[in-house]
């Protein structure tokens, strides 16, 4: 994979959606269901962008419009300046669908080779590129096994490999950790962060908000097809008016003295509590160990 960050600030934006509305016909009496309602969104190049929302909020519909799989009822969507309905717009896009299902009778290598050839990767570089991308997602050990024997985590990995094989500038990941265990999820997050380091733009949807928080630069929240919030993760969830100091355990007397000292300066000690590790971090520290990835692939 690319070692040097690409020109992340190059214009135009990776994705530009203006006034997007998508209606689905419900029955023959021309009743329509509005899945996306006047959505305007810009995903800057080189960022990891999270598209959040409850089920039925319009995330998948928006992604399908971006990929040219659905046509907008009203409005427009451009990918690197090219209208998303055009085949050309997908040249720079890699897509990992939710709960991916691939041709079960192909091996990992054959599957990624198939998609690489569909995307027009040069024959002279095909073998190296496929090996490189399978290695990058950690599937070298299972590359010759049939996809039908893969676990969910491995399916996500081979899905990511096929999405990246033509070296796209934009990677769209629809629920990349759905149904994957915490170790697999953490590995997927690591890969997303690596993609960001390479200067790729990543659009990700997930219900696992803690993961989104860890990897995303910006997020947008959709509800019933409408954009209700958008901004940088730090700005949206950070509490600028407050600070947390983490210190060694203080005796009660010292704590009282600290309260007095703060009060004398017009501040208040809002809370004293014991910091807690996140459960997923605890799980990973106990379960994940060196060589586990290869073990999982061999199993």
């Amino acid at each position, binding site marked *: 994979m690319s070692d040097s960050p690409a020109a992340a600030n190059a214009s135009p934006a990776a994705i530009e959606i203006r006034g997007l509305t998508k209606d689905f016909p419900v029955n023959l009496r021309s009743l329509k269901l509005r899945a996306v309602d006047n959505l305007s969104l810009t995903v800057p190049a080189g960022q990891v962008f999270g598209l959040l929302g409850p089920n039925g909020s319009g995330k998948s519909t928006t992604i399908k419009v971006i*990929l040219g799989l659905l046509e907008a009822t009203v409005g427009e969507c451009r990918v690197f300046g090219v209208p998303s309905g055009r*085949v*050309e717009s997908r040249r720079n*896009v890699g897509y990992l669908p939710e709960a991916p299902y*691939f*041709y079960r009778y192909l091996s990992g290598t054959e599957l990624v080779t198939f998609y690489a050839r*569909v995307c027009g990767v*040069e024959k002279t570089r095909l073998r190296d590129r496929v090996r490189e991308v399978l290695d990058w997602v950690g599937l070298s050990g299972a590359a010759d096994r049939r996809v039908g024997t893969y676990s969910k985590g491995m399916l996500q990995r081979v*899905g990511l490999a096929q999405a990246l094989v033509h*070296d796209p500038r934009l990677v769209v990941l629809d629920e990349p950790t759905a149904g994957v265990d915490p170790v697999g999820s953490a590995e997927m997050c690591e890969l997303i962060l690596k993609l960001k380091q390479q200067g790729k733009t990543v659009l990700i949807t997930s219900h696992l908000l803690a993961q989104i928080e860890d990897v995303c630069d910006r997020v947008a929240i959709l509800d019933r097809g409408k954009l209700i919030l958008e901004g940088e993760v730090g700005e949206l969830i950070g509490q600028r008016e407050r600070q947390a100091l983490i210190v060694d355990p203080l005796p009660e007397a010292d704590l009282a003295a600290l309260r007095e000292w703060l009060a004398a300066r017009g501040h208040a000690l809002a809370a004293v509590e014991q910091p807690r590790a996140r459960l997923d971090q605890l799980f990973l520290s106990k379960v994940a160990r060196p060589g586990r990835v290869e073990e999982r692939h061999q199993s």
Partner: protein
Amino acid sequence: MSTETMTALKSETGRVPFSLERLRLIAGNTFLEAVRQKLFNFLLLLAVALVASAQFFREFNFGSSELKFIADFGFGALVFFGSTLTIATTAQLFFSEIENRTALTLLAKPIWRAEFIFGKWLGVFAVVGVFCAVTIGLLVGLLFYRENAIMTLHPDAFEGGRIINYADILLVGGLQWLKFGVLAGIVLLIASFSNTNLYTVITGFFVLVICHLQYLARDAYGQIDSLLVRLPVMVLSYVFPNFQLFNLADSIGQGGGVEAMVAVRVSLYALIYIAVFGGLAVYSFRNREI
């Protein structure tokens, strides 16, 4: 990834042209998926068994010569199982892509929907081609074996040479293959707007029957005076291809032959319908929401 490779991949700009390579890849994948299906192997085995068993039914030849009976029996098996295979496989392979959502991954690549549709068609056509080749190969072998046996017993009946023209059998087999290609185009057109595999298969069989009986509409068309009745009948007779045109096997086994010009005209007829139905399927599938 090396900078050189990245440059090579990114240097492609402008319009994405229709690609025969992508078409071949999709067709190859479709073929691979089809030959792994139980249905294909089951129908192929049935057809082979039926053709191979034709010699055991020669006592029931209803007055026609034994060789003619074997040829008719063989072509009957080819037409029946070939049509079933074409309709079921085309619908199955199309909807497996949609229902398993592999189409989602594939169509999210820089690929034209026309490449997808014609790739599917080509894959099915190749599968049916294998079916036709095996069935016709077996039929030719069986006829050759029986003709040699009869020649030994009744040499005087073969003074004018062999009765069976094997080149004609291959030619008629090829025309049947083209007919299945037209049928696959029709099924793809139905599948392109249909929501279910079952609807596609049932409608496909209905259309198959209409195409086989379409000549009746053509006959009726010549005898109808009223323009109001004549017009819809005429339209119907052109919308549905006439599958009776492909039945040139009648003269085989009776010493007759198939005229080359007729075979050329029927082939052109099939190719035109394949192009039209394929084009309509692409048009219908173009805006389908995956």
